[in-house]
């Protein structure tokens, strides 16, 4: 009986449960902030603080393991801007983004439309085709390392047997081959994420509407762009922005497949920061390399936050 009783009163707006009642710890506002203390303590200490520490370090000449260092202003940023390896790294990061995200979107969309149907083993397919995205990237990259091997690559072998090439392809030993190989592995890993997100969005498409359009003689493409796409547009945008952010900040795939080689030709910002910071022990410069990522990330985050909110989150 208590249930009915309460909802009635609540409707009439006569009492506001748990506000201004009893001790101060009963109040929503106070409790909410108390609840957030443990989590935010960790986030402030290990995320916010390092972020500002990183900005500070990027303006010093600190070396790994030395505590004697000087403030040098924007020197690291200036130097990097003129450094040819860093310039190539920036270009690679852009290539890596532009060369993968559109393909992931296209393939992911296609795959989602296929998986959206009812067919035998559809659950099995959904789970199975998600695998590239869920297994540890460092480990699945090892499969690609072998598929791109200069000696044992089965891709080379098949192409050779078909008579299309005379020699094994030097997938990772040539700058452009290596960049393209990295893009291929990245597309492979990212496509399932697009597929599964868009698949979730497709659940909101009204089936009757699609069928009605079909009965009225709308073609496959017309049905897609007039009925289906408007519904999934927000989620396509959100997924794309997520992917852009993750792609420009990638590390694992490049680290495992090329380590930035050959001759520093395939670094992205993450791997170059690792090389300068951990191998060359120049912490100041490495921090600056990481922070070159920041403007693009911030832009992506703002756009993403906007589209998530207009999508009706709150």
């Amino acid at each position, binding site marked *: 009986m*208590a*249930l009915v*009783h*309460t909802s009635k009163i609540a409707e009439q707006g006569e*009492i506001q*449960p748990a506000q201004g009642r009893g001790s101060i710890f009963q109040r929503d*506002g106070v409790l*909410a902030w108390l609840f*957030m203390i443990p*989590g935010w303590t960790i*986030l402030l200490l*290990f*995320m916010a603080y390092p*972020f500002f*520490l*990183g900005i500070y*370090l990027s303006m010093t000449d600190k070396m790994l393991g030395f505590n004697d260092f000087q403030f040098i202003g924007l020197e690291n940023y200036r130097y990097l801007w003129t450094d040819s390896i860093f310039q190539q790294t920036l270009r690679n990061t852009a290539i890596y983004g532009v060369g993968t995200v559109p393909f992931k979107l296209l*393939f992911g969309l296609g795959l989602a439309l296929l998986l959206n*149907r*009812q067919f035998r083993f559809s659950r099995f397919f959904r*789970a*199975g085709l*998600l*695998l*590239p995205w*869920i*297994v*540890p*990237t*460092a*480990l*699945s990259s*090892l*499969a690609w390392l*072998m598929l791109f091997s200069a000696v044992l690559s*089965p891709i080379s072998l098949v192409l050779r047997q078909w008579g299309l090439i005379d020699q094994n392809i030097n997938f990772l030993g040539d700058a452009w081959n290596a960049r393209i190989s990295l893009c291929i592995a990245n597309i*492979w890993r990212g496509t399932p994420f697009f597929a*599964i997100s868009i698949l*979730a969005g497709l*659940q909101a498409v009204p089936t009757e509407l699609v*069928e009605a359009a079909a009965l009225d003689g709308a073609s496959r493409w017309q049905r897609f762009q007039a009925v289906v796409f408007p519904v999934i547009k927000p*989620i396509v945008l959100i997924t794309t922005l997520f992917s852009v952010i993750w792609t420009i*900040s990638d*590390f*694992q795939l490049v680290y*495992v497949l090329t380590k930035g080689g050959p001759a520093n030709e395939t670094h992205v910002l*993450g791997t170059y*920061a690792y090389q300068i*910071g951990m191998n060359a022990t120049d*912490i100041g410069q*490495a*921090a600056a390399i*990481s*922070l070159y*990522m920041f403007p693009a*990330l911030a832009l992506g*985050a703002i756009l993403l936050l906007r589209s998530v909110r207009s*999508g*009706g989150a*709150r």
Partner: protein
Amino acid sequence: MNIVGENRWWQRVLYFYLPLGFFAVLLLFPFYWMLIVSFKPDGDLLDTQANPFLLHVLNRTEGFPFISFDWSNITLKHYRYLYNDTEFTRWLWNTIIVTVGATAISLICAVFIGYALGRFKFRGGNLMGAAIFIAYLVPPTLLFIPLAELVSRLHLYNRYWALILTYPTFLIPFASWLLMGYFQTISGELEDAALVDGATRLQAMWQIILPLALPGILSAGIFCFTLAWNEFLYALVFMGTGDMKTVPVGVVSDLIKADVYFWGPLMAAAILGSVPVAIAYSFFVDNYVSGLTAGATKG
């Protein structure tokens, strides 16, 4: 009912089964390759005459019964090698400790944050929600250099705590966001009833809402587990030496050698390291997606 106008078999094949098969082959081939290489004897791997895509168990013979089995072409040698001659089990143990520790801490923090953001109306609530979302977007590559500095100042380098305390930086925002959405879907009436009956806010949360949210908390836990298991960069930088490596780091830095014969153990390790995550995910695929894109699919 499939999409209208596709009733002929050749249409179904052309527009559905063919493309689906194409995707399935491309997406799953690397796993198939890992699996067969991990069971192949080394000689087989280098044999240019043999079809590299098969394990050569089945052989044709001249007379009856036309086929024979040759089990010597399947080997568990690479798995045995991992167990006996590498520190794989130690890496596994490290990964489990770190993953469980980080997941536990993150889940507790995230339940509270998610509850506060999902069920309390308070000034600054929207802002804190946005802050959590932004925190989720901060990539490890942006922070690992200064974090390495912080880890060494706190004397955590090469200790489990280095990862148990840093993994929550991406686990807490993710799980909080997921749980916030989950808590919002639970009706407020039950809670109000309990409050009117004299329960405190905390009692209502503990006894009414949390039990209802258990499925959401469980799936958030699973995802934290898999994200922590998959992490690479922090593990490489903060715990990458000696016997403190995690599975992905150990495999990538210790098992890759400059000779042809390392592929077997390497692929075996990749398979073993992937299996726990694959199992965990396969049960929770749907929750994962709806949680991640919670904002957009609702409304």
